[in-house]
């Protein structure tokens, strides 16, 4: 892969230029490397000049496997549990840690190019997406947001980098977990939440009514 995968961050406002997304403000097509941006290009958010941008660390081309070499991963449940169990060491003495609960990955199944399921830990319950191609999302910065469309609506997921898994995406459902007295209760909630998440929302399956220009100009409510 070329240098086009490297993302650059504004030194003033931390806006990130992602070549994969391009820049709608300056009408830069997706796939344009930072180096190929026109010289008059400035930060779309704060108008800082191009020279003030910094290449994001850990974003080097080396961390990206060439397309096609990522092998299709099996169920990521075990790796997720391992990663969060490692984190639980530093969480254990905090008041947000619910000692009745343990780390558990629930309901992971393949949906197109990602695995979807719920991770329950003593300090959170999140929807988690893991790329089916190993480390396919590693170029996404930690904390960056992506919108996903599911039958029940649109959701923002936040990128997080986990040991042994690389970048995965999470969406918070509960945190802290003080409401759950037992692991069984948390598990029951996780299963119910996954069901609700995947159930189609009738309000969304109906396409929005387009604005009728004629009716609108006549003073109707469109």
């Amino acid at each position, binding site marked *: 892969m070329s240098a086009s995968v490297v993302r650059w961050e504004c030194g003033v*406002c*931390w806006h990130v230029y992602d070549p994969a997304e391009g820049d709608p403000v300056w009408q830069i097509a997706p796939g344009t490397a930072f180096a190929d941006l026109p010289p008059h290009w400035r930060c779309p*958010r*704060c108008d800082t000049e191009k020279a003030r941008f910094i290449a994001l660390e850990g974003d080097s081309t080396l961390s990206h496997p060439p397309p096609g070499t990522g092998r299709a991963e099996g169920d990521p449940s075990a790796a997720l549990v391992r*990663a*969060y169990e490692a*984190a639980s*060491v*530093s969480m254990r003495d*905090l*008041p*947000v840690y619910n000692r009745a609960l343990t780390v558990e990955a629930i309901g992971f199944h393949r949906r197109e190019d990602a695995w979807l399921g719920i991770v329950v*830990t003593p*300090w*959170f319950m*999140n*929807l988690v997406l893991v790329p089916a191609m190993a480390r396919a999302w590693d170029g996404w910065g930690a*904390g*960056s947001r992506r*919108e996903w469309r599911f039958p*029940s*609506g*649109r*959701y*923002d997921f*936040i*990128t*997080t*980098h*986990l040991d042994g898994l690389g970048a995965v995406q*999470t*969406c*918070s*459902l509960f*945190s*802290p977990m*003080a*409401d*759950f*007295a*037992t692991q*069984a*209760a*948390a*598990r*029951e*909630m996780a299963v*119910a*939440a996954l*069901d*609700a*998440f995947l159930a189609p929302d009738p*309000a969304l399956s109906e396409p*929005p*009514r387009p*604005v009728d220009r004629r009716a*609108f100009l006549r*003073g109707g*409510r*469109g």
Partner: protein
Amino acid sequence: MPEPQETFYDVIRRQGITRRSFMKFCSLTAASMGLGPTFAARIAHAMETKPRIPVLWMHGLECTCCSESFIRSAHPLVKDVILSMISLDYDDTLMAAAGHQAEACLEETRRKYKGHYLLAVEGNPPLNEDGMYCITAGKPFVNTLREVAADAQAVIAWGTCASWGCVQAARPNPTQAVPIDKVIFDKPIVKVPGCPPIAEVMTAVITYLVTFGELPALDRQRRPKMFYSQRIHDKCYRRAHFDAGQFVESWDDEAAREGFCLYKMGCKGPTTYNACSTVRWNNGVSYPIQSGHPCLGCAEDDFWDKGSFYDRLTTIQPLGIEGTANEIGGYAAAGVGGAVVAHAAISAIKRARKSDDDDRKQD
């Protein structure tokens, strides 16, 4: 019979704003409230046909940070439009008139638009010594507030002062400052807490009230659901570090430079309902956590009395705002009732979902 009032559209056309800009404002406003494109047309229609609703803006014990935030609404057009859209008939901080002239405006609007004006309250009334700790126009503020509220259509409580009491109501509260819902009982009140509230939130709330002539959907604490249904923690960009147990342990350590979670430094994000982590501040540039400081929880009740801003949060209210009486016991045992769990699961999914039109409408 009151004389015919100008519509918002008449006013902005008179000021030389083009129809194109007007339509752009309508779609921006719809977007800021998370409403779909069909709502832009509804907003445009309402602004073209409905007379401007007079707004009286009163100041009690406060620091004017709400006004400061409001007049800095990021988009210049939005600011101009908002200030001309609401017929701001009285605001003792912003109006040109002063003294008896200003108070005459207040009287006149009250008389002329009885029952048809909005009352926006910034700050709160002190009750001690019969309200002597806050005197406006020679009268205790609490008396004026009660009188003006009596003829209002609805009341907006700007900021944490009017909503919860804020610093002047913190212990020991020598002036007995109280939130406005302790003195106004018979009017619909919308609370827009925050110290100050986010400018975009303020403009969106007032636009909603003025254009639709009805209250937006409110939660149990009377806050607009469209902005106060998620905790800072739920949508924080540093959330991944919390999940992974990566915390800032002291100011300026390596973890702070890495942008790890600020929970151990006293961040109140896990208990604070506000839109900071999604709407952000200063035209979406940043918010406290993004600039490296823990959330103070300024949009929450009693945030001054909950210990130091830098004390680690130890008591965590288990209940989300969507919680119902059934959920108060927690999800204690598996099988307490499938319906309770299913309902809570659906609420959680709805909270996580990006809002669509159906969530915005009044329930």
